[in-house]
């Protein structure tokens, strides 16, 4: 008997976590190598939701690509579309109206808040706090209503188009957004009361899943996950696009690099997003919501790259054009794929229950990993 116990303690044990595990938020398969409860290695296996979006884009016009980039990181659909639209616009050398820039920036920030809210929901749920899930979804609902009123879609909007927007915003848009800022400022305090200071949550996240700044840079971990390790990677701040160059906001940085730091970065980012929207919402200039574009867009021959700050990190679009109406090749740099690659470094030597907390703090969206 004693021999068997010793065997179990010394042997490596291979186990599959996922592809149908509730804490993987989608079809992600992690092959874990365990000794007892300690994680020795994590090997992510991708491909369960691979749809070949990059290949599909080669047979679509630039307007049609928008409906596919919606479906990458569906929680920051607006922001992904922003990258594609800007890549096409800079390639054509079009100056888009100020009104479009304002609306796009506000929509991006609303999408970021909604995305971080859903992350907060699932973060609480993964750590066993189901109440957080309901409170987060309750506050996310008004944002989805704002989206639906103006764009027609709740999750997948397809609102941006090269040259502007699909349609103008609803007349009530400004009023609703202003009401929402007041509403959410009150409610975000509740988030801190409910989860940020909670002793169980603190002990399960503080010091768990450490990632140093050097590791974050070498793995290309961007977004709130990278900034939790002190990596200054906010594209909005360092390469401003849209209206970000003209608004004041802080780049949230934390040096701890553990799961709790990543949590706090996202919480503070929600407040910063509210500040950004507040500075823009009153000043939306009048004007056209789109530039008159040719029905068939042909990009001049060449290579174009545009990056934006999506809710989970840096999202990049690389377009290689041969002067036809279809792109010759499109490469999408999705933030989640790079963030996932650091999972092994973070989870190595931790307990298997901590892996759930680390995964929750990375906030991965599987369709963005597999594309």
């Amino acid at each position: 008997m004693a021999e068997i116990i010793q065997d179990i303690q010394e042997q490596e044990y291979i186990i599959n976590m996922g592809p149908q595990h509730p804490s993987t938020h989608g079809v992600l398969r992690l092959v874990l190598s365990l000794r007892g409860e300690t994680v020795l290695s994590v090997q992510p296996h991708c491909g369960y939701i691979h749809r070949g979006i990059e290949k599909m884009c080669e047979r679509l016009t630039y307007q049609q690509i928008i409906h596919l980039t919606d479906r990458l990181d569906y929680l920051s659909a607006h922001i992904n579309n922003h990258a594609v639209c800007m890549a096409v616009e800079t390639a054509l050398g079009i100056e888009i109206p100020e009104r479009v820039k304002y609306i796009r920036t506000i929509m991006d920030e609303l999408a970021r808040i909604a995305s971080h809210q859903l992350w907060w929901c699932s973060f609480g749920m993964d750590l066993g706090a189901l109440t957080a899930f309901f409170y987060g979804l309750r506050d996310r609902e008004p944002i989805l209503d704002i989206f639906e009123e103006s764009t027609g879609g709740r999750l997948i909007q397809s609102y941006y188009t090269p040259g502007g927007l699909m349609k103008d915003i609803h007349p009530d848009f400004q009023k609703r957004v202003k009401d929402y800022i007041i509403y959410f400022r009150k409610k975000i305090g509740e988030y801190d009361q409910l989860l940020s200071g909670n002793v169980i949550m603190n002990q399960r996240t503080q010091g768990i899943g450490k990632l140093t700044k050097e590791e974050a840079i070498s793995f290309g971990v961007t977004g709130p996950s990278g900034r939790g390790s002190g990596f200054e990677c906010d594209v909005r701040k360092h390469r401003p696009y849209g209206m970000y160059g003209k608004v004041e906001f802080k780049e949230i940085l934390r040096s701890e690099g553990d799961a709790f730091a990543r949590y706090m970065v996202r919480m503070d980012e929600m407040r910063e997003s509210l500040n950004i929207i507040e500075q823009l919402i009153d000043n939306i200039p009048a004007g056209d919501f789109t530039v008159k574009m040719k029905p068939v867009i042909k990009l001049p021959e060449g290579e174009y790259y545009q990056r934006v700050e999506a809710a989970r990190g840096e999202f990049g679009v690389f377009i290689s054009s041969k002067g036809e109406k279809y792109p010759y090749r499109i490469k999408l740099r999705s933030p989640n794929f790079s963030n996932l690659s650091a999972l092994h470094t973070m989870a190595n030597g931790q307990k298997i229950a901590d892996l759930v907390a680390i995964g929750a703090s990375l906030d991965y969206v599987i369709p963005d990993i597999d594309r």
Partner: protein
Amino acid sequence: MRGLINYFSGMFNGIISLLKGMGVTGKYFFTSPVTIVTQQYPENRKTLEMFDAFKGEVTMPHDENNEHKCTACSICQINCPNGSIEIVSRDVVNDEGKKRKELDKHLYNIGMCSFCGLCIKTCPSNALAWGQEFEHSMFTRDKFVKTLNNEGSKLMQKKGVE
């Protein structure tokens, strides 16, 4: 001794933090919710109203004379990224001997539609519009293919400039 103090103070702070969280949930337990977030869906079907911009399905509005605006130009079919629109047209020779296309059937497969709205945006004669219908589930797949133009409908004649 210090370890013991830390142990008890940690326990005490932990209980305080839990009570803080319980305070939030307790507040909502004892105060009735001001607004109900969730929709009481099957019960409120008659009163449920979607936003005007809501993308339910692609429709082709007809006027009271059963006339539509579609000229069978197939621009929506070309612009659709998924191939969910198929236009069946016939050639008609009018009184002056000119050949032109007339819409026979505007087939719309909602099972393949991704609701991007390019067909509606690019239509040169504004013949398509979003509908508010959202209950699309069917028992068989072939019921997803809808004919958007009504039976016996005609092209709306352009009003002459007076």
